[in-house]
């Protein structure tokens, strides 16, 4: 590492916030682009499982709330891709790399949704897991991203409440409705345990070393378990992990997640990966004319 890079690294570790026009090491820029681009991709891919339920939402109010959530997430995608563009990668390139499978999106968006129970569990627990990661990004060493995250986190809190309200409506409904939530929880628990990544120590995680992330993967997972396991159990739901328990030291123990599955899923081998990417390919082709008309400089 050259002296200038070393100095930069020490500065970000001491809390410096970097702006777009500042000098930065190539490695830092590359890691930022990869990470932020994947976040943008995930916002965009994350609306697809929800989109499937707009027409099937049980009431008009739920339909409107779901549509508003989807609009928020597409809006987050555009904000986040703008941050990537200012780092040097154009939006069109991000969209091309997403559909070609060159770039990744978050594991939870590679799975299908089977019932309205899944929609509630996703909006409540997947968004809860996401907001833990996103709140930690408010302290990201790259300031333009941290600023965007302020708006993202603010809107996510409505999503969690919408999800929790959906789940509460079902667990206080008929036994069949309760069962839909339990089945959805059974399906989503393994991906939720994968969500924050393998428990690599912070000092070995380059994303932490560069202070792009401000917490270790396992810290985020522990925070999720500490916050949400009691909220799940108090509804009478069962978490499908017999080993799950809170140790006397306050640390949650759980069955080791299948990290090979996580790796397979995020590299495009999840149960819904290709179907979702196919859908994105079709939409990209269908709306191509819109960007040609709207953004003549991009054509």
């Amino acid at each position, binding site marked *: 590492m050259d002296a200038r890079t070393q100095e930069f690294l020490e500065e970000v570790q001491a809390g410096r916030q970097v702006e777009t*026009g500042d000098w930065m090491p190539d490695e830092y820029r590359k890691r930022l682009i990869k990470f932020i681009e994947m976040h943008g991709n995930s916002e965009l891919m994350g609306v697809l499982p929800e989109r499937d339920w707009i027409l099937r939402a049980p009431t008009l109010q739920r339909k409107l709330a779901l549509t508003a959530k989807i*609009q928020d997430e597409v*809006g987050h995608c*555009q*904000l986040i891709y*703008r941050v990537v563009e*200012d780092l040097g990668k154009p*939006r069109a390139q991000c969209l091309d790399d997403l559909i070609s499978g060159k770039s990744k999106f978050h594991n939870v968006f590679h799975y299908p949704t089977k019932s309205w129970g899944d929609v509630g569990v996703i909006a409540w627990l997947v968004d809860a897991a996401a907001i833990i990661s996103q709140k930690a990004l408010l302290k990201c060493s790259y300031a333009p991203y941290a*600023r*965007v995250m302020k*708006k993202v986190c*603010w*809107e996510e809190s409505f999503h969690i409440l919408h999800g929790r309200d959906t789940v509460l409506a079902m667990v206080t409904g008929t036994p069949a409705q309760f069962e839909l939530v339990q089945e959805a929880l059974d399906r989503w628990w393994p991906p939720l345990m994968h969500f924050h990544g393998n428990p690599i120590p912070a000092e070995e995680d380059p994303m932490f070393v560069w202070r792009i992330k401000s917490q270790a993967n396992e810290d985020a997972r522990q925070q999720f378990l500490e916050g949400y396991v009691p909220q799940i159990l108090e509804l009478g739901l069962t978490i499908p992990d017999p080993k799950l328990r809170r140790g006397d030291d306050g640390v949650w123990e759980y069955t080791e997640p299948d990290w090979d599955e996580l790796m397979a899923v995020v590299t495009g081998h999840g149960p819904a990966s290709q179907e979702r990417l196919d859908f994105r390919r079709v939409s990209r082709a269908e709306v191509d004319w819109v960007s040609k008309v*709207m*953004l*003549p*400089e991009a054509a």
Partner: protein
Amino acid sequence: MIWEVFRQERKGQPFVHGGSFHAPDKAFADAYAREFYARRQESVALWIVPREEITEIGEFPDEFDLKYRRVDGYSIKARLKEARERAGTAAP
């Protein structure tokens, strides 16, 4: 074309940079700014500016060390102590 957004959260507060977006002209920029930054009444006013119209100035060297123009250019502690002692108003 990229537009920068500055948003005011409450009346009387400063406008703070919020982010940016693509829009082909002013009419679309107006519509997008409303959707992205104010649809939940989280802003009371927005300034939207084409990025190329913004000039950033960021280097402010102080070659002559003109500290006499700032509060950190004055250290009055010792003098004040002496003045109080002379006047007989120093704390015992």
